[in-house]
């Protein structure tokens, strides 16, 4: 499993990104906040990501916009100048606070439905615990890109099959085959409308991420730069 998240082969540097530019300065920080963790909810358009986030979020899911500057499809071959276009892309956001055993805030980020906005997927996934790849049995292929993305950047993920009423139910091995999953990647069924069902998916994901973290060589050898 590739662990080279910061410099994975798929990754393209984004405009405005400067190496070594840290967070807000130390003087601007104040001690006393909860630890903030991210979870990503990925999957194709219309598989139920907003509903899934809404089932556990303490605020109604927000649709947050970001401007993306992309190289346009058309390139001026005479001058070699690429046309840049700015598009607006929206992602879902939800929040879940936990108090026990320590104050924690889980931020839930839903990926944009369209696969072409991969730049923002990197922002959403950076530093995340892991991802739920939500799938609709009527069109599993809509969520293949999400699973591939997670595998390529080494982000732990589970496939959660959102079982709409009356939807065809596949046996687990059929889902595994369709997604070409590694044997240790969990596959669970869920009802994206039901809080306890969504919470169970999150539990499965965090358990899986914990197992992955324990298996990571860096865990036992402290700070060896294995990817160098």
């Amino acid at each position, binding site marked *: 499993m590739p*662990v080279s998240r910061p410099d994975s082969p798929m990754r393209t540097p984004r405009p405005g990104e400067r190496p070594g530019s840290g*967070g*807000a*300065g130390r003087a*601007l920080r*104040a*001690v*006393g*906040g*909860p*630890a*903030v*963790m*991210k979870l990503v909810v990925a999957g194709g358009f219309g598989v139920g990501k907003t509903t899934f986030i809404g089932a*556990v979020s303490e*605020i109604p899911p*927000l649709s*947050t*916009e*970001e*401007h993306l500057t992309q190289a346009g499809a058309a390139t001026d071959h005479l001058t070699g100048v690429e046309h840049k276009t*700015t*598009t*607006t892309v929206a992602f879902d*956001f939800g*929040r879940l606070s*936990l*108090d*026990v*055993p*320590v*104050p*924690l*805030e*889980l*931020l839930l*980020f839903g990926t944009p439905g369209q696969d072409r906005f991969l730049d923002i997927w990197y*922002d*959403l996934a*950076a*530093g995340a*615990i892991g991802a739920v790849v939500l799938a609709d049995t009527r069109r599993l292929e809509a969520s293949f890109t999400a699973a591939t993305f997670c595998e390529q950047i080494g982000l732990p993920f589970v*496939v959660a099959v959102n079982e709409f009423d009356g939807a065809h139910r596949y046996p*687990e091995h059929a889902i595994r085959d369709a997604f070409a999953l590694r044997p240790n990647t969990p596959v*669970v*069924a*869920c009802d994206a409308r039901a809080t306890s*069902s969504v*919470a*169970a998916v*999150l*539990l*499965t994901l*965090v358990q899986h*991420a*914990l197992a992955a*973290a324990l298996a990571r060589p*860096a*865990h036992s050898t402290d*700070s060896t730069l294995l990817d160098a």
Partner: protein
Amino acid sequence: MRPHSGPKPLSAGASVEVADFVRTYTLTGGRTRPRHRLRLETVLELGPGRPGPALPLECEQILVLCRIRRRSVAELAGTLGRPVSAVRILVSDLLDTRALRVPVPAADSAYIPSSDPAAGNDPSVKLLEAVLAGLKTRFPDAYPQAG
């Protein structure tokens, strides 16, 4: 009516998008880059400083929201209905005047994602254990189903 193919003036949708883009960067005084590196998940709380004069309405709204509780950049942008890139610049201004600040976890350092570049941003084992315990406490009736 469906738009014709071939050369045509900006469609209504595109001009709305351009207008929105222009409005956003009028708001930030034409700036497109914040001075502070703010992630989507960076959480802000009210600081001890006073904001400067002639504050844009959106800055006032950010301060009102953060007075109620601490909020992430993503949540502020979603609540205000403004793009993240614009909100990053406004938040950055408010950090400069210390009207806002970034809280860090008070718990021991194991709960803070490592600052060691070799470890990347991966959450620590201890933090993941805390999340697991927190979820189990919050959702005692959550039961995983086989796929």
